[in-house]
């Protein structure tokens, strides 16, 4: 019996331990849960050590120290960041933290504005009048109309000062209430998609157990 066979049986046993939660919150389920969390963290730590600390820093400095001298700057920033738990020396980690937060915010804002906001705003500008006869054209037109109306109504739902608009307040409130139903449909779709996704995982696990039983691994 090689290690792969042992791994398969361990995986089958862990699968059954997790599925035992259906019957009760048993210690077997707790054990499997702890093994999963611990192995994930351990795997991530080893990976970071090998890829970042060892492969990306120590080995680089050992092999070509003159060329990789700039690597000492992130090393120093990282060491300063480790001083954050010490109250008296926590301020030394501020530059590292500022660099991380600032670079992250810059990347996120630039990417979101150019990659999400503008393209998606343009994508909601859709033709709602069918350009050609036929059911398909009408179906696309109705779909586009639902997108446009849904976007506008949901945006108006978050416009909380409709009552202050005078005679225009009533239509705004009606559109906002319609936007609420659009959001409810969206939330229902989110729930259904998550349920289908988790159902797929269950199918995969049961299929794995059946394979173990069939093949006798």
């Amino acid at each position, binding site marked *: 019996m090689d290690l792969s066979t042992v791994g398969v049986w361990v995986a089958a046993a862990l699968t059954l331990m997790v599925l035992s939660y259906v019957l009760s919150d048993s210690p077997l389920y707790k054990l499997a849960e702890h093994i999963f969390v611990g192995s994930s963290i351990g795997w991530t730590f080893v990976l970071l050590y090998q890829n970042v600390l060892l492969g990306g820093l120590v080995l680089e400095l050992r092999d070509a120290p003159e060329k990789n001298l700039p690597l000492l700057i992130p090393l120093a920033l990282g060491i300063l960041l480790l001083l954050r738990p010490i109250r008296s020396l926590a301020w030394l980690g501020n530059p590292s933290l500022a660099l991380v937060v600032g670079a992250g915010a810059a990347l996120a804002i630039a990417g979101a504005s150019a990659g999400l906001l503008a393209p998606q705003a343009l*994508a909601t500008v859709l033709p709602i009048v069918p350009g050609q006869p036929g059911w398909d054209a009408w179906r696309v037109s109705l779909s586009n109309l639902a997108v446009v109306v849904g976007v506008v109504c949901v945006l108006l739902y978050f416009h909380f000062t409709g009552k202050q608009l005078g005679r225009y307040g009533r239509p705004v409130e009606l559109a906002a209430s319609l936007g609420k139903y659009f959001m409810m449909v969206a939330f229902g779709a989110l729930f259904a998609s998550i349920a289908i996704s988790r159902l797929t995982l269950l199918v995969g696990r049961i299929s794995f157990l059946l394979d173990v039983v069939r093949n006798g691994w």
Partner: protein
Amino acid sequence: MIYCPFCDTGNRSGSKFCNECGAALGEQSLICPHCSSLNPPANRFCRACGHALPELASLASMAVEPAAISAGEEELDDELPSLEADVPTLDAPAPTASERAAADTPTEDLALSVLPAGETTATRGLVQDGLDPAAVEATALPILDEKMRRPSELPAWLDIPEPPPAPRELPNWLLAPEPPPRALPSWLPLQEAPPQRTLPPWLFTPEAPPPPVRSLPDWLFLVEPGVRLPEEPAKALPAWLFPPETETLPPRGATVNGFLGTDCTDSQAIRFNPLPKSVDSNVPPVSRLLPAWLFLPDETPLIERVLPEWLFLPDDSPAPKRFLPAWLDTREPGKPRLLPSWLFAVEETPLPLPVVHSLPSWLFLTDPGEETAMPPSLEAAEAPASPARQTIVLARPFQSPQTPRRASLAAGPEGARAPSYEEVFADILQPKAEVTPSVSLPNGPRRFKLASVILILVVALPLFLPMGINVEPRQDTTRVFDTLQALPPAANVLVAFEWSPGTDEEMAPIAEALVRHLVKRRAKIVAVSLTPEGGKLAQRVLDQTLLGATSYKYGKQIVNLGYRPGGEAAIRSMLVDLPNTYGVDHFGIPVKDLPLVGEVKSLKGADLIVVLAAEPENLLSWITQASSAYQGIRMVAGVSAAALPWTRPFASASQAAQLKGMLVGIRGAAEYELSMGESRLGVAATDAQSLGAIFLALAIAFGNLAHLRARLNKPKLARASQPGPVGR
């Protein structure tokens, strides 16, 4: 305020004992003529020095004589300056109304206000001087009553607070010895006396002028009978201040029909409650003068205001009858109404008598054996069926059953006794019989287990018996297939493996289908990952799909660069320089030794980017950083079903779409396998997933129906005393 002669504690006027030390306050204290110590009136010798004390009775029996008063005032003038000098040094408060009033009172009143209760300046000064009691009898002022110290002109509600007590000399035995002087250490010598600095004159504020004496307005004082007030011009009060002349109040004790004199039956007669004696009209009213600002000028015409017409009902129009809607009228034939009577319009039929709620007799406590007449208000509510209410007797409401009841009673006609606590609350204390609903349903956890087991069986059945559910490729899947099919030979394709083992069951079929198609198209594959477990999972997928593909050489046609931390920053770095972003691949091989990586150079050098992401955030990172920075990048994706609502807007058929196509979940994998003419993991799992989805939909539908039924049946169950949530 009365100050204790022993502890100087201030006590409220009328107190008989000190709040602090408990000494009697009504008695007078004796001051030792030798050491000025205060002594109780019973002492004959001073408790501090042993000196003989004068008897208080001789002082208290002194009579008031004008000559003696005048003689005492002469000595009073000698002591007043010292007393007056002591008064402002207490706390230097702002002059209060009482002090302003005291400024207008005679000097004796001021002196009285700063001395302890029952002590006059005359007695204090004379006793302190150690004069003969006979001389005291001839010269001292009598001990004035406390009521005499308040000016009689002010009404009682204008009680003037007394000023703080004057400083008194403490007896010697109360004084703590002074601490011995301590020498400063040598290292702390005073260098020099600090130079005296004169402050600039602008720092000193001019002395505030004495506050003006303010006199209360005349109308605040009651006018004594017989005093003639200066005549003021008569001013007419506005008419709306006077009640109509025709309105007369019923005499006291009369019976008034209805509320405010409205017609009603005799049973609703309201007994006119006489006014209390404090406001009895027998006392002749005191004429009060209203202030001048309450009067309108004579020449000011009254403004006539016209009410709008809609406030008036036409005179000839009858009062509209109001009827309740049918659903509010719960009256059934032969049964009384459940709604209160005031909700219904007045009809010819007499209104039902109001229900009088009588308190249980044990709530009334009297002495044992004593009979107390029923209050008149409860006489009307007396019911002949409850003879125990005839008398109010003592009963212990919370008496335990073991102890014999004392509440037997005295005088009930039939030996009636007061109901005990158990009898009154028998309905509450008696354990209720378990009322089970008509349909016994398993509880929540049990139903959850049952549904879970059924779901597992439903999902496992198609794995034994494939059903072959027809799967038609959707447009998104077709666009992905067409995009890969249109790749040129030996195209450079970068595949991002962004999932963890938790979602491997769903993502692995998608990844295997796409990589298999790429291998078929002889594309060069560069595997990257921004997820820690992605490198290992990518290698497993590559191993399974490249099994038997001998033409693929690692480093030339396929490379697994593995995990790279940094997230979006790493993607940006890959856009610029892919080899330096990694350095080494998944196996630790330097990237410079992998020709394929040097050939791709960056993300811009890839002909296609395939992102396999289980979470929407991972795909959005690639979209926002890669597609926004370089418009020429062609990207397709494979996502889990959970990420579909978040990623669906990015995939469309338009040229500007950021995703050229997208595979979604196990269904997308099955569609892609069928598009390639295969039947593997995706197709095999589609049957099970479809049946499981149908079961979930039915479970949700039945659950909602059960919940709806529970809500409809909830009132019935609640009346059946079934507490708690129903149907859980």
